[in-house]
């Protein structure tokens, strides 16, 4: 196995087995893990406490127990998260950090069915005001306080600033990776690309950084080969399960950039510099744009995606629409119109974590590839 293959296979196995990652972390450090619900929670605070932040993104699953607690029109990811709560999957977490940027999450934050304590906080939505930074820094101060109590550790400003640097380094390396991956689609196929990114959710960040850094430099040493397939940008909450990515691959698509809440949206901006770490983390949210969960009366998401398409020389955008996700559904008609006006082609596919039949997606992707 080449070094590249080894790194990819290690990261893939971590992204497929979060439980083992948690156990390994415990063995190594003696410390446990804290769950992080989507979206945009300040993981750095958990990292600074010496605990492992673990991303909670549900999983491919048939829904049965959750039916009693959620109507069928709740989004697919939260159906699966609810199902896993009821199965006790998350009960080894010391705590769960729970942001509430959509109506579904507001409700879900009040009905955690597992045993771990839940720490809820609210992102401000009038984001460009200085008052919003102050409000969020205060929310984060309370998050820190609660974590300190639950985990029985002191989280100093110094440790927190240090963790922010660790995370910023990871963000930088990830941006570099996604750029590189666009040049080597023969090596980094859609599924591998996703696994490399997803592993971030289950690893101490500096470890992840080191591996991706090495991967980047290995990639850079290889010649860039001509790619005969089509290049696409993904947008949405997430592009799972893996079957979806395999369908893209089988039809000759390469993912050259993404605007997914689970992927690039998390690392396209660094946490800005400053002295007060909580204020810095709050300011990240102010500077962040182009996401359905970060209110923006100018709706810069469409133009941002069009820049992304241009910058990555993509042939089209694939809209990965999470089933029953209303924030994303509201953005769609606007950027769709903007794409049409700019002559950018897009394909709409539905993301459903419960389904096991992908015939429809297959057909859609196939005919789209013929059309391009």
């Amino acid at each position, binding site marked *: 196995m080449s070094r590249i293959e080894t790194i990819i296979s290690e990261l893939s196995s971590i992204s497929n087995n979060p439980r083992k990652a948690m156990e390994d972390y415990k063995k190594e450090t003696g410390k446990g893990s804290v769950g992080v619900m989507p979206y945009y929670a300040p993981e750095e605070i958990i990292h600074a406490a010496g605990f492992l932040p673990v991303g909670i993104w549900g999983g491919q699953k048939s829904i049965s127990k959750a039916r009693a607690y959620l109507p069928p029109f709740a989004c697919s990811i939260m159906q699966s998260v609810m199902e896993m709560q009821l199965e006790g999957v998350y009960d080894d977490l010391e705590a769960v950090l729970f942001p509430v940027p959509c109506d579904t999450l507001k*409700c879900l934050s009040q009905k955690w069915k597992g045993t771990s304590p839940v720490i*809820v906080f609210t992102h401000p*939505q*009038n984001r460009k005001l200085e*008052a919003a930074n102050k*409000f969020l820094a205060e929310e984060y101060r309370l998050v820190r306080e609660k974590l300190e109590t639950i985990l029985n550790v002191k989280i100093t400003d110094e440790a927190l600033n240090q963790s922010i640097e660790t995370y910023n380094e990871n963000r930088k390396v990830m941006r570099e990776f996604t750029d590189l991956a666009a040049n080597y689609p023969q090596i980094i196929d859609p599924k591998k690309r996703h696994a490399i990114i997803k592993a971030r959710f289950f690893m101490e960040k500096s470890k992840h950084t080191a591996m991706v850094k090495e991967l980047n430099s290995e990639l850079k040493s290889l010649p860039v080969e001509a790619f005969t397939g089509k290049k696409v940008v993904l947008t949405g909450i997430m592009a799972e399960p893996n079957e979806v990515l395999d369908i893209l691959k089988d039809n000759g698509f390469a993912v050259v950039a993404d605007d997914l809440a689970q992927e690039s949206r998390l690392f396209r901006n660094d946490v800005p510099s400053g002295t007060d770490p909580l204020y810095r983390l709050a300011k990240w949210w102010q500077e962040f744009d182009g996401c359905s969960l970060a209110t923006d009366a100018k709706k810069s998401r469409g133009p941002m995606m069009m820049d992304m398409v241009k910058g990555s020389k993509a042939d089209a955008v694939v809209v990965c629409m999470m089933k029953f996700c209303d924030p994303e559904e*509201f953005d769609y008609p606007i950027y769709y119109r903007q794409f049409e006006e700019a002559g950018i082609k897009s394909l709409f596919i539905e993301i459903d974590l419960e389904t096991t039949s992908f015939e429809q997606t297959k057909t859609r992707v196939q005919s789209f590839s013929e059309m391009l």
Partner: protein
Amino acid sequence: MTDTTAMSAKELLGFYQEELYEEARQAKKEGKLVCWSASVAPSEFCVAMDVAMIYPETHAAGIGARKGALDVLEVADEKGYNVDTCSYARVNLGYMELLKQEALTGITPEKLEKSPAARIPLPDFVITCNNICNTLLKWYENLAVELNIPCIIIDVPFNHTMPIPQYAKDYIAEQFKEAITQLEEICGKKFDYDKFLKVQEQTQRSVAQWNRIAALSSHKPSPLNGFDLFNYMALIVCARSKDYAEITFKKFADELEENLNKGIFAFKGNEQKRVTWEGIAVWPHLGHTFKGLKNLGNIMTGSAYPGLWNVSYTPGDMSSMAEAYTRIYINTCLDNKVKVLSDVISGGKCDGVIYHQNRSCKLMSFLNVETADILQKENGLPYVSFDGDQTDPRNFSPAQFDTRIQALDEMMKQNKEGVSNE
């Protein structure tokens, strides 16, 4: 000016609703500003600046109640709005699209021509507030971008921990200042703080009369059917910062008190059981839901929904105003939500609860299971839930509704008999 002194409350309600739409149309004609507003966004700022206001949720409810929703929902559908999103938003965004087409081409689209609802002018700017849902943020973003107009946002963060902390109130009060600055720019004139204080005081008088009506359902038998509140709600939404609301509500409360004194009650015949309705009305099937309950001898005497507009605060005190607009029960933690609903149920001396699982409204549906469970443990009252939607007529099944309320009726009967046999 029309003489309103001799009008009944019901006449006043119709009169002022029409008057508000006419004022907005007139303002547009005269080149004055029109604003579209979320239903529980603070109205005080715009009214103090003499801006004509339109409330899309109320307008959409009107379209729904007059059976005109499907036509405009289709327009939203064509624009790419998923049928899973809030139907108020879809009705309004579809309607906006028709108005926009008309403005661009000079030709009135057929669907607009045919629409049974009041004609409204396009807005010059919009104001939104997420105290009832974040959907209102997404919806208004889209209005602002589609029409290329300013959007004033009042963000009231979800109160995951009660009581509401001062730093949250400070953040909201800061946004009030920002809204004033934005308004000064949009209107091209200085903000009138004296008038603003008067508008705040007016709002408090309207709210006081509104609360007076709501309190009357605690009488047993009740002079008020909660369904009436659904109708009168149009004015607490659209005119709470004007005397229209105060005048109408005072009249209605007076009428109801007079009825009470004379022994005239809302339920003709004998009210047998009293229910709480949790959630929004099913506008396209309002008659069906009303009659269904009535035929079983049930009257609705509890609903937390009208309480959303109980925005009482101290005029002149921005922090107190901030608190009033953020403490709305669906913007608070489950404990508080349950507490508010529990008071509504006991205040209305209710025998059971009906939960509207609203396909349009995730926020008002996803905690119903937990809410119902906690409340039942607390008060032992039976409950049912039914599937519905406040404006998309396709998401409601009359047969299911009937079966569920019959079941509730049975349980309430048994409960009552059980009690009287003890």
